[in-house]
């Protein structure tokens, strides 16, 4: 196995990781600040992808599609928060899970009703399509490089927002003591809606960005949601930094495991059997990672110490 192939696979793992981070960031903020388990986060990812496909299809502009995805998911998030989620903050986690699971069904059937059962078309903009040659003769997709850059930029933006702005202070304060911060005159209801909409918008953006290289179809959000939960558990619930590190770890483990485990098994098995057992074990890789992290640090890498 050549060095070029290994570097290419590491880039693939990074790209997968930063996209997971966009999903996980919103999920971990919502859980950390409001204590809400939001299973419908995957639906907001789907809303973003469908909005992007519809707008890009109508206008021919991928950028407009991305903006539409961001806005549509933020709006959907804000509406859902104000109409439904708001009533659930005081409820038990099981009630939250039930209610947000119902939201998944409503979003999925609603989307099918609007757009039909067949997958929609959303393609990479022509300016970003095709491969570029990196130093060392590595051919790599320009669009995927762009995804890595966007993911890192969003990560940096979130860090500035949380650590360096007034809203960030309020979010951090709200996480620690919500009575105290509302006593200080911050409108906690508005803050919650804002956080929810922000998380939703990031999920929608991820859906649109990934939708261009995958398929835009009903139910596309749920598999990603499961991975995003693994990410925030590994990173520590409520921690943006944890979500970032966790997402990269999961992305790299999943990609590299899928490539190298079958190779490893080939050393002592025949090809077909090595492929089957190697890929079966690779699909467990991230859960093994989660288990190991939780044994070592029960609250996750950057979680608050209980």
């Amino acid at each position, binding site marked *: 196995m050549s060095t070029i192939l290994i570097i290419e696979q590491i880039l693939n793992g990074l790209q997968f990781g930063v996209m997971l981070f966009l999903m996980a960031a919103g999920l971990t903020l919502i859980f950390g600040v409001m204590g809400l388990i939001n299973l419908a986060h995957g639906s907001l990812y789907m809303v973003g992808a469908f909005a992007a496909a519809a707008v890009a299809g109508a206008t021919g502009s991928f950028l407009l599609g991305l903006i539409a995805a961001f806005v549509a998911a933020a709006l959907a998030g804000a509406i859902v928060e104000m109409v439904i989620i708001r009533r659930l903050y005081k409820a038990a986690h099981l009630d939250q899970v039930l209610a947000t699971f119902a939201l998944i069904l409503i979003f999925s059937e609603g989307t099918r009703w609007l757009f039909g059962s067949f997958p929609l078309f959303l393609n990479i903009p022509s300016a970003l399509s*095709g491969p570029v040659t990196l130093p060392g003769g590595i051919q790599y997709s320009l669009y995927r490089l762009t995804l890595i850059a966007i993911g890192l930029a969003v990560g940096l933006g979130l860090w500035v927002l949380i650590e360096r702005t007034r809203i960030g202070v309020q979010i951090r304060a709200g996480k620690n003591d919500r009575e105290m911060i509302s006593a200080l005159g911050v409108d906690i209801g508005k803050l919650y809606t804002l956080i929810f909409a922000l998380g939703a918008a990031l999920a929608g953006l991820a859906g649109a960005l990934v939708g261009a290289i995958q398929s835009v179809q009903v139910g596309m959000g749920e598999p990603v949601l499961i991975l995003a939960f693994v990410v925030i558990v590994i990173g520590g619930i409520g921690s943006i930094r944890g979500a970032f590190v966790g997402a990269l770890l999961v992305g790299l483990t999943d990609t590299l495991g899928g490539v190298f485990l079958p190779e490893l098994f080939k050393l002592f098995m025949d090809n077909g059997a090595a492929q089957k057992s190697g890929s079966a074990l690779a699909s467990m890789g991230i859960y093994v990672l989660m288990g190991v992290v939780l044994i070592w640090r029960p609250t996750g890498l950057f979680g608050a110490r209980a």
Partner: protein
Amino acid sequence: MKKLLLATAATLLYATAAIAEVKVGMITTLSGGGAGLGIDVRDGFMLAIKQSGRDDINVVIEDDQRKPEIAVQLSDKMIQSERVDIMTGIIWSNLAMAVVPSAVNQDVFYLSPNAGPSPLAGPGCHKNYFNVAWQNDNLHEAAGAYANGVNYKNSFIMAPNYPAGQDALTGYKRFYEGKLSGEIFTQLGQTDYAAEIAQIRASGADSVYFFLPGGMGISFLKQYADSGVDTPVIGPAFSFDQGILQAVGEAALGVVNTSQWNKDIDNPTNSGFVDTFQAEYGRLPSLYASQGFDTANLLLSALNVAEPSDADAFRDALRAANFDSTRGDFSFGPNHHPVQTIYAREVIKEGDVFTNKIIGTALENHSDAYAADCKM
């Protein structure tokens, strides 16, 4: 009074039974991922029923949501409370394996419009089970034969790690004579193929064969086109049907895929089917729609000869397959699976619509590898 009521009820019951209505139970996937396939089968089937003009056929349609446990519940309901004579509709092999064996053992006829798992073609075959689509391996075998025909010597092959995926690669290898530059199993439901594409690039293959149904295939083809790897790709029709092609777009153009049906097969039944389907539903039919249409026409042809209550005569009428198929010649092998020609198609663009055209024949009068194991 009580006696009178009972008597009335009994008469009513008798009266309903006397109208010899045929009850067909269709369990198919109408919601969730993969609903497009079920909807196409249903629409093709109902189009044929409508064209027949018969109003004594009652089709009960239920959605299995692609979940085996729901399919089993629905099938129990259909057999025990609806008392259907014939069942059909299932798309996925794992659901078929959960439903079909118990249904046919309760003396219900089952006509499969899609799923063709190998156990039901081999040792688990049954006199009341007919497959109107194909045995699962067929299109893959045809792809292997096509690869020999165009002189590919070094294929890279790929499928998800689940029974139908393993069967797919086995099917391809059964006919393909060259050597393999790589063989990988991906995860079922995987959406990112960057890692696999990098391996294809590094392998030096002269062709890529993949079986990735539904959304998985869309993702792979888009990413493959974007990666700049230009090794030619072959696949079975499942990643190139009419519902999927529009979502893949330009990335699919020129790709060769194998299918037992295409809209340009030249016979009056097929051209009539394509026209009326388009007029009725406002879209081009897919191979799944053609399978639904053929299934209904097979059923109608048998109903013209015998009632399902006369099981032996009805079974013989089904086995005769005396109907006009959209595929042209159609007959059943000894295990009640089709013996048919499988074509190689190429993805083209007609106006704004992506579709397929036949470029050659991959396998003629092809049956399946399991017929010998079937003791009926």
